[in-house]
């Protein structure tokens, strides 16, 4: 009875806490400019199924892809068992579904156990890749401090969670064989779980019933408390990608990657010179700004991108400028965007829901000119991202702000602009010489 009440309090508490934080994330994402992205739903669903559910792009790097798949599949399938755990927790019963489901129950829990072993291997491998093997993309400077700790916390949580599963099932197997389990006795001698029916007797075989009951309960409660903790850790962690990968891939760019958006606020000014019948899109009295200076200038998709980033660094590892030692790192662009967005969000929380100018902006305080101007716009980062994040659009917006609002392009580019404006070519050649090649030898 007491345990049911504690369980229900924990369940409701963690759900409410998660809901409140998820709401904040939604609020932060909607700080971005509104854009319509919901055309071609079939293609969007297909992208989501292939890229998020099917992890298609992960398999460009097979080893981390397989390790990741272990964790991912284990995570998804474990949710089935969670239904029983929640039911048991509320009612105070134990393994409530076993009598009715029979063989199917044994199969499902066994399957989860096998996946948990694979996930256990995956977790250890991932911890080693980060901390022992020091895979280059996982130890870059932008990960120093919290991001590195965050990654390790998640992996250690997963490690502990799996340990709890085997404590719970292992001790229960031994108890069941002695007829002492709280699970309903169906007259068989074992729960028949693929791993625990062997591992349990091996580890706990010599322990007295009382001790086994304690271990089983520590495993059970430990497991569910880790699940609740994990859920509530998500909004504060890069691990949010497990949820946001789905909407983020659904709202992927479906156009050719080379196609950059035309700014309609510019078209409004330019096009009437060429086409007097042109109807401006914007209200002529509205104040307009060009490009991206801070969070509000980005679109909600850019901000969803930032929250979906799990800092794997495939983008940065593929970036020609980063490879050659420049300051630009597409991953840092996404991390900076998220950090600034969270800062703006906290500012709003503190000031009753309105943002009070803090004298800072994404451009300059987080992302430096040196990073912005290094970009080759080659789309390697966009291509690489396993959840279809687009750092390039943000970089382009920042460039537009620097050129159109702050007139602070590098000098050579200003030279290129004036050549283009005067000669119709980026170099200082006369437009009247443009066809000279025809008659040259």
């Amino acid at each position, binding site marked *: 009875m007491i345990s049911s009440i504690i369980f229900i309090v924990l369940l409701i508490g963690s759900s409410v806490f998660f809901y409140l934080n998820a709401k904040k994330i939604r609020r932060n994402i909607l700080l971005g400019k509104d854009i319509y992205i919901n055309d071609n739903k079939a293609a969007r669903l297909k992208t989501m199924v292939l890229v998020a559910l099917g992890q298609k792009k992960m398999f460009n790097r097979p080893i981390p892809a397989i390790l990741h798949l272990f964790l991912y599949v284990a995570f998804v399938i474990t949710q089935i068992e969670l239904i029983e755990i929640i039911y048991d927790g509320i009612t105070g019963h134990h393994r409530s579904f076993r009598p009715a489901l029979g063989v199917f129950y044994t199969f499902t829990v066994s399957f989860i156990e096998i996946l948990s072993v694979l996930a256990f291997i995956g977790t250890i491998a991932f911890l080693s890749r980060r901390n022992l093997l020091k895979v280059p993309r996982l130890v870059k400077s932008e990960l120093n401090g919290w991001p590195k700790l965050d990654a390790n916390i998640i992996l250690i949580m997963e490690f502990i969670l799996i340990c709890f599963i085997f404590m719970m099932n292992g001790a229960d197997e031994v108890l069941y064989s002695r007829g002492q389990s709280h699970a309903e006795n169906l007259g068989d001698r074992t729960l028949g779980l693929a791993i625990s029916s062997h591992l349990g007797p091996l580890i706990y075989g010599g322990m007295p019933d009382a001790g086994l009951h304690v271990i089983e309960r520590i495993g059970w409660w430990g497991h569910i408390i880790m699940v609740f903790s994990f859920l509530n850790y998500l909004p504060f962690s890069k691990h949010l990608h497990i949820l946001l990968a789905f909407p983020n891939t659904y709202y992927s760019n479906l156009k050719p990657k080379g196609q950059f958006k035309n700014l309609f606020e510019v078209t409004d000014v330019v096009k009437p010179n060429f086409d007097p019948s042109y109807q401006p899109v914007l209200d002529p009295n509205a104040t307009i700004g060009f490009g991206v200076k801070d969070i509000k200038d980005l679109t909600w998709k850019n901000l969803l991108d930032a929250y979906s980033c799990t800092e794997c660094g495939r983008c940065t590892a593929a970036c020609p400028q980063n490879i*050659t030692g420049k300051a630009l790192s597409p991953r840092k662009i996404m991390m900076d965007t998220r950090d600034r967005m969270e800062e703006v969000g906290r500012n709003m929380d503190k000031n009753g829901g309105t943002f009070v100018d803090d004298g800072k902006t994404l451009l300059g305080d987080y992302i430096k000119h040196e990073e912005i101007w290094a970009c080759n716009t080659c789309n390697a980062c966009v291509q690489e991202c396993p959840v279809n994040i687009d750092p390039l659009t943000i970089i382009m917006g920042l460039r537009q702000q620097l050129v159109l609002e702050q007139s602070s392009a590098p000098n050579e580019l200003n030279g*290129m602009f004036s050549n283009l404006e005067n000669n119709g070519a980026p170099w200082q050649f006369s437009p009247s010489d443009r066809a000279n090649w025809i008659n040259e030898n």
Partner: protein
Amino acid sequence: MNSIVVPTMQEKIAKGEVPDILFWVGCSGSFDDRAKKITKAIVRILNHVGANFAVLGIEESCTGDPAKRAGNEFLFQMQAMQNITVLNGYDVKKIVTGCPHCFNTIKNEYPELGGKYEVIHHTQLVQQLIDEGKLKVQGGEFKGKKIVFHDPCYLGRGNDVYEAPRDVISKLDAELVEMKRSRANGLCCGAGGAQMFKESEKGIKEVNNERAEEALSHNPDVIAVGCPFCNTMMTDGVKHFNKEDKTKVLDVAELIASANDL
């Protein structure tokens, strides 16, 4: 070498003729000495198959690509609309470009501004000509040679055109070698995003040297490219490693024109 015939749009119209296709030469192809050779190779192919084409000549102006990628959207749209006015004035339907940047910009970014055309890159045109049997390609001087192809970002990743240049090269009876970073994983030459027009930021290496080093690790006779800017960058990279005597940097159009003695 035969002399080339390059009618301008104005000349065609004056004669009452309507060209099937407009050859968009681009700034590099018009002004850069190295790139002009690529332009002429494309023209030789067009002349060889008797294509009914024209160029804009002095009526052509930069597509605005470098301005747009550098953040100057005003300048881009001014250039775009100026070009669209000219192109629409001639009622142009189909365009072949000598540069992946022009290709991408006209194909993807002009339609919304009022310029809707069928746009292909010159490697796609060559592929079509071969497929239609209008162009027969022999290996010629490239037979048995080792060729490594460098994907231009705005042709490959930008527009998913990976096969056309490879199909064309494969007709040369040469050994086509793939770099580790190729197709969708290709590494930029370092020119895109208006980097061509500025010094690079502080780092440990130039991007073009990184890419040229990768290409040269295969010890190729030819590094094939499909973009005049890649050509410049890769040529500089090959020179950086003092390999210009062994390895030539050539456009796919040049490979075809040379192999066929055009």
